[in-house]
């Protein structure tokens, strides 16, 4: 019987390397997506709260101008 054990080990090593590669790729991709999603949700929530704030309180520009009294101290 020929000694072909080294080739068998190489074959299984390549298989394990590829499978590990898939798992690492999936884990890293999931981690990046999760981080990106959290950042975007934070930004989205900030934008929404700003919108809500501007909707409830009138903008500074829209406030009626105070009529200055001629005798008012400067």
């Amino acid at each position: 019987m020929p000694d072909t054990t080294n080739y068998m080990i190489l074959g299984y090593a390549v298989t394990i390397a590829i499978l590990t590669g898939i798992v690492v790729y999936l884990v890293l991709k999931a981690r990046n997506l999760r981080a990106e999603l959290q950042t975007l949700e934070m930004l989205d929530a900030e934008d929404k709260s700003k919108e809500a704030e501007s909707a409830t309180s009138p903008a500074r520009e829209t406030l009626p101008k105070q009529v200055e009294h001629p005798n008012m101290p400067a």
Partner: protein
Amino acid sequence: METGVLDRYSPGRTRFLNMLTVATAISMALALGLALFYASTDQVQGDVQRIFYVHVSAFTGGATAFFVTVIAGIAYLRTRAPKWDRLAVASVEIGLPLVTVTLLTGMIWAKPIWNTWWTSDDPRLNSMAVMWLLYAAYLTLRGAVENPERRMRYAAIYGILAFVSVIYVFFVIRFRTDTLHPVVFGPSPVESTAKGTFGVKDPRLVLTISVGSIAWMLLAFTLMWHRLRMENTAEHVRVLKARVLSQ
């Protein structure tokens, strides 16, 4: 803090996916143990013949993933729902590395047995390489079509047509006589009574290859499911990014 789409999956489905992941890990470990310690050593080839259990099983897993691409493609063309396109991408992304295992282990097995890593005259080897390139091109070409609706439609059609190569790879050794590749299951055109170079009647071989094939199919389904969830999250990220940038 919200975790968005990641929380939208039902706890039941997540629990099932977790159980499937554990079952896959156990079955893969079992398949590896059977291949290395239980299956009989081939008297002619020696230990390298144990590559057979990975070589064939990985193809089973890859072909399963590519079959899912076909189903997803048909479903997309019928419904035009983007979720089917996401499933198709997930299945190709998982199927491709699995058939890469088949391709590379085949080369490693060929070296001591055929005295060559690769022979360009062999129809099985060539068709396998063409199949690999077709699915690699699927992923590359998707990026070339900018219009999303057109991209999904083209990808669906491509995914369905590319499966012809999988069928051809499976059957080519059953009708071509000019191949070095043995037929393990079923009659060979070279010798009608032969069933490969090693007997499939060996119960240890049958058990090991059966467990291996089931384990790799489970692996394909589990990885596809994880990859699909990721693709759904990526889609949610794309929508959210567009909303944030437009504000």
